[in-house]
């Protein structure tokens, strides 16, 4: 629950503390953001986004609670991770939709800027860590689904269900990411444009991480006593879970490094990449 709240911490921060995230030398500023102060209009937009994202997380958690109430949720330790995932998914989807529709809420009048191009996935991030992650996800799920044949029926059903859902989430995440990068970006000047592009890169990354993060739900059964001494390829299932987690973390670090580079290069970097 603490982790889930920390994801939406922006919705609870006082205005001054919130603004620290978006200052050139703000102590709370993420490493992959532009090194200039964000304009106030952008801050107001981010504030609205955070509140809406909190709402999205609450709705997703309520949905999970409803499922659990009807006995459709996992009957073991995976419930905690499922709640965390619901927070992440609810937040990411709301942020993606708001980001894609940000120009609709713009106040008419005043100067506006455009990059003069339609965005591509490669403009915002390096695609290879996500491709690596998708391959790792497929391999991990392949091993797990095969091993699940030896599990108790309830756990086996969980593995199949979670595996299918996570693959659908990966496909949906890529589809939505492609949609998002093509949506108009709202900005009144070059600085706001840099911030908008950087935040969009974050939103795109979150969408691409949905499915791979979801796949970890499958691994919950590896830590259930009732699952018995199930092994795949001679190794305990938990080993595969930890290996997948390792790849996931490595890919996340690579994503962060790639995003930082594209953000540092800024709009000019995007333009150069086109040439």
């Amino acid at each position: 629950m603490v982790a889930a709240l920390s994801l939406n911490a922006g919705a609870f921060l006082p205005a001054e503390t919130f603004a620290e995230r978006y200052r050139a030398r703000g102590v709370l500023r993420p490493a992959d953001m532009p090194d200039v102060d964000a304009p106030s209009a952008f801050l107001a937009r981010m504030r609205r986004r955070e509140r809406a994202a909190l709402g999205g997380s609450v709705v997703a958690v309520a949905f999970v609670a409803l499922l659990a109430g009807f006995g459709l949720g996992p009957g073991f330790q995976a419930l905690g991770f499922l709640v965390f995932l619901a927070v992440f998914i609810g937040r990411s989807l709301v942020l993606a939709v708001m980001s894609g529709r940000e120009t609709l809420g713009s106040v008419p009048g005043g100067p506006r800027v455009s990059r003069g191009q339609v965005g591509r996935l490669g403009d915002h991030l390096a695609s290879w860590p996500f491709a690596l992650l998708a391959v790792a996800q497929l391999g991990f799920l392949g091993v797990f689904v095969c091993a699940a044949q030896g599990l108790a029926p309830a756990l086996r059903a969980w593995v199949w269900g979670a595996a299918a859902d996570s693959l659908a989430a990966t496909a949906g995440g890529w589809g939505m990411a492609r949609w998002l990068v093509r949506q108009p970006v709202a900005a009144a000047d070059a600085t706001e444009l840099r911030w908008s592009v950087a935040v969009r890169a974050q939103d795109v990354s979150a969408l691409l991480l949905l499915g791979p993060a979801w796949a970890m739900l499958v691994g919950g059964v590896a830590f259930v006593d009732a699952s018995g001494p199930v092994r795949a390829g001679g190794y305990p299932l938990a080993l595969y879970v930890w290996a997948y987690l390792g790849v996931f973390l490595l890919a996340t670090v690579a994503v962060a490094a790639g995003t930082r580079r594209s953000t540092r290069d800024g709009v000019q970097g995007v333009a150069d990449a086109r040439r």
Partner: protein
Amino acid sequence: MLVVDPALPTPPFEQLKQQIADQRLSGELPAGHRLPPVRHLAAELGLAPNTVARAYRELEASGVIETRGRNGSYVTGTRQTADKAAAAAAASYVATVTALGVAPDRAVSLVRGALGLA
């Protein structure tokens, strides 16, 4: 980057037209650069789609951009951008022939041959 300020006395479509034309000349918008669809650019610049469509139409009429059916609108090349691209290709050729140890006279005669001037 394209900037439109409705507070300026110049009409927005004229601002847009002028910037695309200027950036094409300066090379900031290279030949073959695909411009955003009308609705996309209109949303980013807070303009009516008709305003952007008018700017695109006039730019197309003056040869600054070309529309390739449903594939969108593209910036056409200029003498300057063609010269710049040719200079880059020449520099690349020089680097290659130097690495191969080809004598300058021979390298030039090869170019003349390729151009059909030999």
